[in-house]
């Protein structure tokens, strides 16, 4: 979740047709302050923003945050806190423990 600005609250309100557990990802030109992406979202409106200058892994990284994952200090992994542009040996890895964390997220439902 994290704290959000009034502009983020306004953006994340766009959820027409989405279920409460659906994660909305907004592709934006830029954020203030500048980031590749941001997983902060208002309560009850799960989602993330991904900037135009992001890497090809930023979307997955931010959704990982929304599903409860934290940064790791390993550039072989999707959740590296050093920047997904520094990922080595792509595609990046997710640990079994990270998979378990995402499975336990309230946003993860059986389909």
């Amino acid at each position, binding site marked *: 979740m994290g704290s959000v600005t009034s502009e983020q609250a306004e953006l994340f309100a766009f959820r027409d047709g989405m279920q409460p557990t659906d994660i909305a990802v907004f592709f934006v030109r830029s954020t203030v302050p500048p980031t*590749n992406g941001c997983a902060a979202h208002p309560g009850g409106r799960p989602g993330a923003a991904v900037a135009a200058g992001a890497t090809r892994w930023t979307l997955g990284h931010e959704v990982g945050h929304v599903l409860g994952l934290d940064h790791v200090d390993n550039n072989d992994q999707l959740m590296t806190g050093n920047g997904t542009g520094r990922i080595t040996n792509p595609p990046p890895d997710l640990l079994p423990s990270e998979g378990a964390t995402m499975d336990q997220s309230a946003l993860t439902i059986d389909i």
Partner: protein
Amino acid sequence: MPVDMSDVRAALERDEPDYTQAQQLGPGAIPHLAALVRGDDAMLAAKAVYLTSLIDAGQDAIKVVADAASHPDPAVRVAAAAATRHLPAHAASDIVIALAADSDGGVARVALKSVPAKPSDELRGQLAYLQGNSEFPELRELATHILADTGP
């Protein structure tokens, strides 16, 4: 300890830079940040100009922000507009005047949201112009609110 470009890139290449932590790089990072603003990676340039404004509000930082304000990529100009919030009001006003007139409505919008609490007379004149003439209704409305809130 001297700051080198690898330190600066390590701070800014993160998907979500920790700007509070990155500020600790200090003024020694400014030349590297200026180089990144001049470089061909717009994402890094945007992050660099924003960090510059957090590290320093002196002439070197003002020049970096002013240079970014004329960057060809609007995302960098957006970051420059946001960076003016950390500069002294007189320097911020000069840069905001230019960015508020940007042909890109997104850049102009962030510039207007960065107007200092006590805008210069010249900036107030720019706001009055935008109030009546901006092609973007949201900017006309925003300029109206700012003029009312900041008073003569």
